[in-house]
């Protein structure tokens, strides 16, 4: 009732702005605009819908001309799509951000300690805090990494953690992406576009900078230079290893390499000789010290992992184990972002840091546990079921939006392989204003900040806000009709 009463209470272009029980980023429970959205709200009211549309077109064209695309898998080959970007920024206050930043730093610190422990003594397993079976049955656990000393214990160098905001307004962690998270280039590009489109608003609001991301990433990678690097005082050679032009994130790989001024290489550009890695250049072989790899563990070295991989470099793993080259992220980090391990992250934080988690988890049911399984399978329409090793929104069931046939299918899958699934209650993600069809409308959003871990932890303020552009949809993945927005953290 209250929602209906509040409808039409806002002037154009907000006339279609309806509220419901999800947390709204712009408007509070009483229907008043939150103070940190005030500038944006007033600016939008002063612009005609035509002017807003014109700016949206300028933004779209700018993305098109820069070739900012991603590839959708599983459809017709080579379906390159322009990454949809919403015109309106998502705004966070300094205090909100400070808490997020503290929580993320705590989380990555604990996860890196956890990875070191899991691949060495396994104290946390011996103490029974995390069950051994979950680790050893994880498909991203790499036996080959046991006992290997990772440079500076930086297992996860780059993380992209997905946060969502509960109806209460509290931020919680939905997923840790600890393998090869992507999207930082979209964050940087959409900021560039926004600065051109809303320069006056940008200044009024006092937005914290994110442009230092590439520089910070480079410093983080440089910190990993192997100790015995024969190159002495000269600059270490850092490369970005991409699977190639057919990969969905190739744009990002090329973009980041260019921003950092490092070489963008494919597996076939690298050779390993006597446990040293070289890249083939016209001037001869050049020793490589650090590899920012954007290839999954499985494909990195056909001699150590999947023998049918043609993307990787034969012998790379041995060179890595010999300490002659560093890789970011380290191999085997996927064990910590397995969705079943995720359920234990609060316990992991308490175990290593002796602190309470700043950011909570979403309540998670392990399907390998008979009681929890029975509970969830009885009410599948209320839950989101996810495969533990998947990412990008693939392999999941959203209960409330599913058909009976889909639920039956998932019930069968869960019963056949319970370890492979978890369930979480369907959460109403918070909503932020978006400019769609000539009006400002609320859509569900999440937030993916990028965390860098080298000599220190660096998090640029904000990150990528992903938005479910379809009305009512809760899926923000770009492969499933999601888009992005610029994220402003105010000073």
């Amino acid at each position, binding site marked *: 009732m209250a929602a209906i009463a509040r409808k039409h209470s806002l002037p154009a272009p907000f006339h279609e702005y309806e509220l419901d029980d999800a947390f709204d980023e712009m408007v509070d429970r009483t229907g008043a605009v939150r103070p940190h959205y005030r500038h944006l709200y007033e600016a939008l009211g002063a612009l005609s819908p035509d002017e807003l549309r014109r700016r949206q077109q300028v933004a779209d064209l700018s993305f098109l001309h820069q070739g900012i695309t991603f590839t959708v898998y599983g459809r017709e080959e080579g379906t390159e799509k322009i990454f949809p970007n919403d015109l309106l920024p998502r705004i966070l206050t300094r205090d909100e951000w400070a808490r997020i930043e503290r929580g993320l730093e705590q989380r990555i610190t604990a996860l890196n300690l956890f990875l070191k422990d899991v691949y060495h003594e396994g104290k946390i397993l011996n103490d029974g805090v995390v069950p051994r079976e979950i680790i050893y049955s994880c498909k991203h656990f790499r036996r080959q990494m046991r006992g290997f000393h990772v440079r500076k214990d930086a297992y996860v160098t780059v993380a992209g953690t997905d946060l969502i905001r509960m109806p209460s307004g509290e931020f919680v962690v939905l997923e840790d992406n600890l393998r090869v998270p992507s999207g930082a280039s979209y964050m940087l590009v959409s900021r560039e576009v926004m600065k051109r489109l809303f320069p006056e608003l940008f200044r009024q609001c006092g937005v914290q900078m994110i442009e230092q991301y590439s520089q910070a990433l480079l410093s983080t990678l440089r910190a990993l230079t192997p100790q015995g690097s024969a190159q002495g005082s000269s600059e270490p050679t850092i490369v970005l290893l991409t699977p190639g032009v057919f990969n969905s994130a190739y744009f990002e790989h090329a973009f980041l390499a260019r921003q950092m001024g490092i070489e963008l290489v494919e597996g076939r550009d690298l*050779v390993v000789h006597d446990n040293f890695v070289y890249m*083939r250049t016209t001037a001869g072989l050049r020793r490589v010290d650090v590899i920012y790899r954007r290839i999954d563990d499985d494909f990195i070295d056909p001699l150590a992992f999947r023998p049918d991989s043609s993307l990787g470099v034969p012998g790379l793993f041995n060179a890595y184990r010999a300490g002659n080259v560093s890789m970011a992220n380290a191999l085997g980090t996927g064990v910590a972002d397995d969705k079943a391990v995720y359920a234990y992250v609060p316990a992991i934080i308490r175990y290593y840091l002796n602190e309470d988690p700043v950011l909570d988890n979403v309540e998670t049911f392990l399907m390998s546990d008979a009681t929890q399984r029975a509970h969830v399978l009885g009410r599948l329409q209320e839950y989101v079921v996810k495969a533990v090793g998947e990412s990008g929104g693939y392999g999941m069931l959203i209960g409330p939006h599913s058909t009976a046939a889909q639920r039956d299918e998932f019930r069968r899958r869960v019963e056949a392989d319970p370890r492979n699934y978890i369930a979480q209650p369907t959460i109403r993600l918070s909503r932020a204003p978006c400019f769609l069809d000539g009006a400002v409308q609320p859509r569900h959003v999440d937030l993916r900040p990028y965390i860098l871990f080298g000599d220190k932890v660096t998090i640029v303020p904000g990150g990528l806000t992903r938005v479910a552009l379809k009305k009512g949809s809760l899926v923000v993945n770009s492969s499933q009709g999601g888009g992005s927005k610029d994220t402003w953290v105010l000073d």
Partner: protein
Amino acid sequence: MLSRVADSLFWMSRYLERAEHTARVINIQLNLMLERGSKSDDLDWARVLRSLGVELPSEDVAGAQVLAQSLLHDASNQHSIVASIEFARENARQVREQISSEMWEQLNRLFHAVRRRGGSQEAWDARDFLQSIKEGAHLFQGITDSTMTHGEGWQFIQAGRFLERTMSLSTLVGAHFHEFHQTGQPSAERAYLESIGLLRSCTAFEAYCKAYTADVKPQRIAEFLVLHPSFPHSLRFSAEALETAIKDIGREAGSRRSARVERMAGRLRATLDFAHIDEIMGGNLEGYLDEIRRQCAQVHGALYQTYISYPIEAALEA
């Protein structure tokens, strides 16, 4: 520069030069046939194939026309124009970040235009198509020269273009004179048409006339196409441009192993620089052209061994 990038730029350029050359030669042949009626079509097509260096599967002269037509649109024929442009684009796509966006857009445009044409046209309708290939390739070269840094990558593009040109020109000229000698004394009219056709195939008719008037003589044609120092579709010009590119690559890459490929490119250039047309024609023109092609293959091999597919051990010693 990464060896893979150099490789892609080099082949992008070679394939584009090849597409343009093929388009020009076929276009001229279609013109010639218009003027001569259709009695000896298959024999003529067999000769076109030879002048492009395409092997006829057997002495199946009747198949020549079909094969020649497949050189236009048949992507499954690796010698075809459409295949060459596809290969050129595929190479460019691998190094999209290394070339200017203008270059990529033009090559992409050309590729889509070629694909749209489909495979059903009669060769006779193809002249607009062939013209558009020629123009598209020229446009790409102009864009390349004016939007890309003339650094190492650009030098590999130059090397690819002029190596391909030297090889295809020597094949074309060789096939022409081979025919000329074999058929004994053709009618004066026919000899004239053929000679003009050869010159036009090298976009050389106007330039030739400025140098020698419209009085076409075999020896002068050979001299012009093989030894002219400043005409861009002569063998000597191409070999000089190739040597320049290779020397510049050596300087840019700063490799200590560049001496061998530079020596070979220099020898190729000298073979053309210090030759005299009377000696060539008095001796064995075809043998001379074969030698040019053999040296081209050596330059190509040495270029690859030096910069692209060198053995690890060789590079480690350096």
